[in-house]
């Protein structure tokens, strides 16, 4: 299955946000659910199980100066095996203009047994924009070893690299569950917070030794990174 969805936000001239484009196709449908103050709220509604290997899903988001958008997904997406030798792909690309705000806060991606999944995030943030970007990965459904999943995150701030991370889990990723990478934790994720008026917070490690706050080198940005025994605990570390 191939699907492209597109969301474009502009200021509405009255202090709020107008969505000038909100178009999707199954299984990637977008719904505006309301607003919180000036922030428009949008849900990605998955209309089918999956993604299945072979699926290619793309979501493009553009937030222009003065607009603010918060995007959620209604449920976790479960990457499942499909066509033999094929990969499922979920690509989210976003552009956030100066003075705009984007909060990308989806539910988890679950890497089911036998899956081959690539989740790509490509974000271009202008100087003076605000960004919250969360990615969570659950390695396997209940008591199951995951297939291969790769989470690839590329964030540029004002045309300069801010964050580049590729996390690979599954049979093709040597040592992924070992003590150098996830230490046996089945859940992992990160939350990137970029705020133009607020300097990054200093490093801090959760007393449990499984989550940390990391100020990045390339701008006023903080990355929260965590490993956890389950999705619920993971989320508790990654609430914006």
């Amino acid at each position, binding site marked *: 299955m191939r699907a492209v969805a597109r969301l474009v936000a502009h200021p509405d001239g009255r202090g709020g946000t107008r969505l000038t484009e909100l178009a999707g196709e199954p299984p990637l449908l977008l719904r505006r659910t309301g607003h919180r103050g000036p922030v428009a709220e949008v849900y990605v509604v998955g209309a089918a199980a999956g993604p299945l290997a072979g699926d290619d899903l793309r979501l493009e988001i553009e937030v222009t100066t003065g607009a603010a958008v918060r995007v959620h997904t209604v449920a976790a997406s479960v990457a499942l095996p499909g066509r033999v030798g094929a990969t499922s792909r979920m690509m989210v690309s976003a552009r956030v203009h100066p003075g705009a705000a984007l909060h990308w806060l989806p539910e988890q991606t679950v890497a089911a047994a036998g899956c081959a999944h690539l989740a790509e995030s490509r974000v271009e943030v202008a100087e003076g924009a605000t960004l919250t970007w969360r990615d969570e990965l659950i390695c396997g459904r209940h008591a199951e070893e995951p297939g291969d999943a790769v989470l690839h995150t590329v964030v540029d701030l004002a045309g300069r*690299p801010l964050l580049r991370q590729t996390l*690979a889990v599954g049979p093709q990723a040597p040592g992924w569950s070992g003590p150098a990478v996830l230490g046996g934790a089945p859940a992992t994720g990160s939350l990137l917070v970029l705020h133009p008026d607020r300097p990054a917070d200093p490093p801090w490690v959760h007393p449990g030794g499984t989550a940390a706050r990391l100020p*990045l*080198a390339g701008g006023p940005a903080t990355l929260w990174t965590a490993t956890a025994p389950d999705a619920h605990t993971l989320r508790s570390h990654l609430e914006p």
Partner: protein
Amino acid sequence: MTPSTLLLLLADGRFPAGAHAHSGGLEAAVGAGRVTDLATLAAFLRGRLATAGLVGAAFAAAAHRAAGQPDRAGLLALLDAELDARTAAEALRRVSRRQGRALLRAGKAVWPTAGFADLPTAGGGPHQPLVLGLLSAAAGLTRPETALTAAYQTVTGAASAGVRLLGLDPYRVQALLVDLAAACDRTAAEADRAAGEPPWRLPAAAAPLADIHAEVHATWEVRLFAS
């Protein structure tokens, strides 16, 4: 091409760049109770090779490639920013730059005529893989040899730290490294191939625990290793 003595000299832990003072994150992993014996050390080394090992080797190889390019300074500045973006933990950025400084000091003394003036040092020193790449180029090593040196060092340093931290049998730790040799070769080959790509496409293999361990370790008052 016959491998040279220079390759062995640069890869040797006795090269005076202070590598013996670093455990590559192992000390913190031992402190967290995640590495306790030979089997967990083997898993640690495998994961480290596939993440920090691949990224470091790719950047060393890319710096080696940049050494001979007309826009060398511009490329090195790009590589510096790209490596920062792949190193989320401030503690790891600091360690890389401190090790880079130590390697540069040795390199300048050993190859006084090689130019290192265009290495970006803004964050407190040049990143270690970039220095290694330029040094290897100055020594006349090939790009694959440069990648191999970097990948090799990411596992050997942590392995010998394992002997000291856990009191493991050095023969059996050496046997672990022998088991890892093929994976190390493959990682170096992958890093060398990647180095042909533009800087933004270089590998970015991440390890959440490496970041967390590094920040925990940085808060310890008493420790055997600098990282």
